[in-house]
């Protein structure tokens, strides 16, 4: 029973490089993690008020 807008219950897609085998889903998650981390590093963080 799948009540989803996007049906992820189809057979999975996998990528192979040598002995490495990763699902597209996992690769996406890892990729997003790296992107988010890099963005957190580079996007400026302006605190609202300086000093006390």
């Amino acid at each position, binding site marked *: 029973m799948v009540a989803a807008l996007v049906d992820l219950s*189809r057979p*999975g897609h996998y990528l192979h490089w040598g002995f490495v085998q*990763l699902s597209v889903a996992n690769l996406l998650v890892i990729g997003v993690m790296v992107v988010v981390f890099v963005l957190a590093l580079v996007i400026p963080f302006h605190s609202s008020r300086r000093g006390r």
Partner: protein
Amino acid sequence: MQTLDEASAQPDEAEWEGPKIRYDLAKEFVLALVAVAVLTVGLAVVFSSPDEHPVTIRQWAQATPADFLATAVTELDGSSPTASYGPPYDTAPGSGQTIGPLAPERWIGVHEPVSAAQDFVLGPLQVAAHSDPDLQSALASYQAAPAATAQQWTAAYSSALGHVGFSGSAVVVPPGRYGPLPPMMSALLTMARTGSLDADLLSSPQFYGTDYTKPLLFLADGSFLADKAQAEHLSGSQWGMMNETGNFPGQAWLWLYTMWYQVWPFTHTGNADALVWGLMMLLTLGLLLVPFIPGLRAVPRLVPVYRLIWRDHYRRLDEARNKPLR
């Protein structure tokens, strides 16, 4: 209050007495909670979650009866993975994984006793035999036979299963010396196909079963469960530990644990599980003790991600000192 320059010169354990900024922790937490809640609801609405129906012994027996019978025979003759597992299930000689001289599996011993022949074959048949005199006498003659004779029967029947046929509910094997095995195996297959073996294995020894060890071990001894897992990229040699059924993301955080199973020497040893667990415990200990490990704890200084994180601070410090960065 100290200046930025003075405060920055203090040791790491000193309390910060330099410039501060307003920082609303409670508000930050509430905003984080709302953000994560929205993300969670969004992901749940868009993708839902996987729920593939469990495999039953009934399905196994109906879909691949030859594999079911072959597995049942190995339970009887002691050659199945469960029957030859050793601790914690039984005391099969020479069993149990080791890491060099360490054999924790053997040292701790049997605490989840499973007698494969009795639990998966003879026990259920004894229940069915209450209302079947022919099965009753077949069982009696099997249990009365010397071990060597029983082995001959199971070996012969095992080979015969390579040419098995099914006619209705009848199991058809080439003529041979199988002793009482044919009626026993036929009866077991019938029990399996009707689902009573599922119920029987779960509910022993009591009505309310919550321990699925027996039916799971039996299922895992056959190929039906494993073939389904292989088709879904869940097997050990497919980095399966990280994966989920379908296209769902799985457990990416298990990448290092499952990686070892793909590489030498772990691919070529029967002690792979013990060795990988030992290695992972060591690496986890390493991660835990990073603050105390020279070299490893110096990595942050060598890989200058910190320069990005604190670039505002360094710029202001530089301005305060009226000098360019060294």
